């Protein structure tokens, strides 16, 4: 197992280094191999983590909660790595100037980004966790700016400024967590997570309360909670599509992971009431905002970004319910959302490639012109809107069930209403893009002679895999996964 973990750390980093120097074709292959291998490695970890925690080198600590997030990240890493081959192919075919430099930066950045997101859930130490997330910010900001358009520059600037300010608050949270820990564990407490959790009940209340709120606001900036989500629609829509998929599907989840760790400590020290209330407030605010904004979107990737805000709100609300089944739903939701959002972005990327425009009004007749990606995109949107039999339906159902079970009836009802609202917004836009027949002479520049056909098979395969995952998660999650989730719920509920 140690070899698995170490390989998981080394592989993406090596791939990044290789991509810096190698020609584009080699970089593609290396990235794809690294991605798929990492996913396989994490799958190998699942049965282990379902039974006991793993710890190596005193810096790494992997428990069931970590593996859930590792699964989400590694799946998207694999999917996106394969997808990128098709995504960058048109640029390579056209032989654009500077393409080799662009592709080197792109692949190196992609691998580095995935590396940091894989490393973060494995950190045993709150300080290292913060550092890992800080590095994800830095790398992803550069990736957002890589397109070098006006919009990309603006989005990257907003992103780095807001996210770094938020992480400054999160650093303050880490400092106060140290202070709280030092009161009980002595001045040389090194911010390890396990001792802090164990001595939870003895921690002084005020610093823990302060640390938790600061962590929610600080890491919530990276997670996309209202009101510090303002960078999110810009950054996710201006980044290249594979990066958007990783940002929405994995990075938000990893930031949520950080909040969960602070939640564990806060629940152990303060009791469950206060942390849950805080998360509920932020969750409902995010959900409300996203649902409203989804009703009036003009840009397909921006719409998907708001959908991410919506789902992050659902995650926060789910944790605030506190019932074990709600928590199980939360973890399942992390996995299912990663798959569904990845699918959606990847499908949107195909649409944008095909029709040459990001605007919803510029895309129509998707089902006719794209025999695979059209329906797949439609399925992805339906999955995001919590249609059965896909994974998100199952997870949201569990969350709502937990909510009613824990007598948070009002909150659960609000959740249902807002999710329906979001569904409405998403489906209107999607049907406009997919079902409405193509009007002649609509696309600027290119003639009405858009032929029916996929731009690239590489862009279809990952989406199919994603749909398969969603079906599996929705219909019958495998036994090991259920065991993992149960153990994760148990760990999160410690002290509840």
């Amino acid at each position, binding site marked *: 197992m140690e070899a698995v973990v170490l390989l998981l750390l080394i592989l993406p980093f090596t791939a990044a280094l290789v991509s810096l120097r190698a020609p584009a074709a080699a970089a593609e292959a290396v990235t794809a191999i690294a991605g798929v291998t990492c996913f396989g490695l994490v799958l190998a970890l699942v049965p282990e983590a379902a039974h006991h925690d793993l710890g190596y080198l005193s810096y790494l600590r992997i428990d069931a909660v970590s593996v859930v997030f590792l699964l989400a990240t590694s799946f998207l890493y694999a999917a996106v790595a394969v997808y990128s081959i098709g995504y960058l192919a048109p640029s390579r075919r056209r032989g654009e100037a500077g393409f080799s430099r662009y592709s080197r930066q792109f692949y190196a950045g992609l691998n580095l980004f995935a590396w940091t997101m894989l490393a973060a859930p494995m950190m045993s130490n709150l*300080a*290292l966790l913060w*550092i890992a997330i*800080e*590095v994800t910010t*830095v790398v992803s*900001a*550069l990736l957002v*700016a890589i397109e*070098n358009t*006006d*919009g990309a*520059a*603006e*989005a*990257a*600037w*907003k992103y*780095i*400024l807001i996210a*770094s*300010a938020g992480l*400054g608050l999160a*650093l*303050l949270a*880490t*400092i*106060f967590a*140290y*202070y709280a820990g*030092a009161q009980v564990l002595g*001045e*040389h407490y*090194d*911010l390890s997570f396990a001792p802090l959790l164990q001595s939870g009940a003895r921690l002084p209340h*005020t*610093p823990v309360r*302060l640390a938790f709120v600061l962590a929610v606001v600080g890491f919530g900036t990276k997670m996309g909670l209202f009101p510090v989500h303002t960078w999110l*629609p*810009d950054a996710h*829509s*201006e980044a290249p599509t594979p990066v958007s998929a990783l940002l929405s599907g994995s990075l938000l989840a990893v930031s949520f992971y950080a909040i969960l760790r602070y939640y564990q400590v806060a629940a152990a020290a303060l009791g469950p009431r206060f942390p849950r209330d805080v998360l509920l407030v932020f969750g409902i605010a995010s959900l409300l905002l996203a649902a409203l*904004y989804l009703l*009036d*979107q*003009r840009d397909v990737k*921006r719409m998907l970004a708001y959908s991410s805000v919506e789902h992050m709100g659902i995650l926060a609300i789910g944790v605030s319910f506190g019932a074990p089944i709600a928590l199980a739903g939360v973890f399942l939701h992390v996995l299912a959302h990663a798959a569904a959002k990845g699918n959606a972005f990847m499908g949107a990327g195909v649409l944008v490639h095909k029709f040459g425009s990001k605007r919803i009004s510029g895309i129509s007749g998707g089902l006719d012109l794209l025999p695979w990606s059209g329906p797949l995109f439609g399925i992805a949107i339906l999955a995001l809107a919590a249609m059965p039999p896909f994974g998100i339906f199952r997870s949201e159902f569990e969350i709502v069930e937990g909510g009613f079970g824990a007598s948070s009836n009002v909150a659960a009802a609000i959740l249902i209403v807002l999710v329906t609202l979001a569904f409405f917004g998403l489906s209107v836009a999607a049907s406009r893009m997919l079902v409405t027949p193509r009007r002649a002479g609509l696309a600027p520049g290119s003639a009405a002679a858009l032929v029916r056909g996929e731009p690239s098979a590489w862009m279809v395969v990952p989406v199919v895999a994603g749909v398969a995952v969603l079906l599996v998660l929705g219909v019958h999650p495998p036994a090991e996964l259920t065991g993992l989730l149960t153990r994760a719920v148990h760990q999160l509920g410690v002290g509840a």
Partner: protein
Amino acid sequence: MSSLAGAAAAVAAPSVYSGGSSVIALGVLLAEFGMFRQALLRDQVRLYAVQSGLISVLAILVAAVRHLPDLYVLAALSGALKVVIVPIVLRRLLRGIGRAGEDDPARGWTEIAGSGSLGLASTVLLAIAVAAFGFFAVSALHIRSAVLPPAALEISVSVALVAFILMIMRRDVASQAIGFLSLENGISLAALVVAAGLPLILEVAFLFDLLVAVVVLELLIRVHHGRAESLSTADLTSLRG
């Protein structure tokens, strides 16, 4: 005829160390307010260097009085980084902003910061209100530090809050970046107060992140300037909704 000799002081006098360290921390806050006043980017960078220098001095003072040898290393490292290297990097970046062949090739360095929506005095009054909130909020927490007086923690949180105001009110990317760097200063001051015994690893990593952030900021400023030929953020309004 009452309360002269033997007037029990309403607020007891602090020790010389307490008073002195509070004064230095106060200097950090005043430097933060000073950044509102500075119109030239060059002066803002210098003020940032002064602020970082004050924090290093405070760290050395704490290390000397409270016998924490780790802090000497930290003070030296952060001093070297924030007082010397970062201003030099910023200066080179801003000097490079000017177009070649122009009258003043160092245009960026002497550029006037974009003014915000409120006038200066109103902004300062707003910042005072925000700092007051910081003071009251932190004092209500009753967190006692082992190494510095409680005023220092209140001051550090106020510095962070005022830095937020600075970032919001400024209208050009360089001032926003400097505002962000002063936010980091405020947080490192808070770290000094609450966690002076913190293991070196966190501090070193923190400085590493600062360096990386500066590199990224420099890159993005270049990108922005490369596209817009100016440092103003007035054009960064295309992404809405």
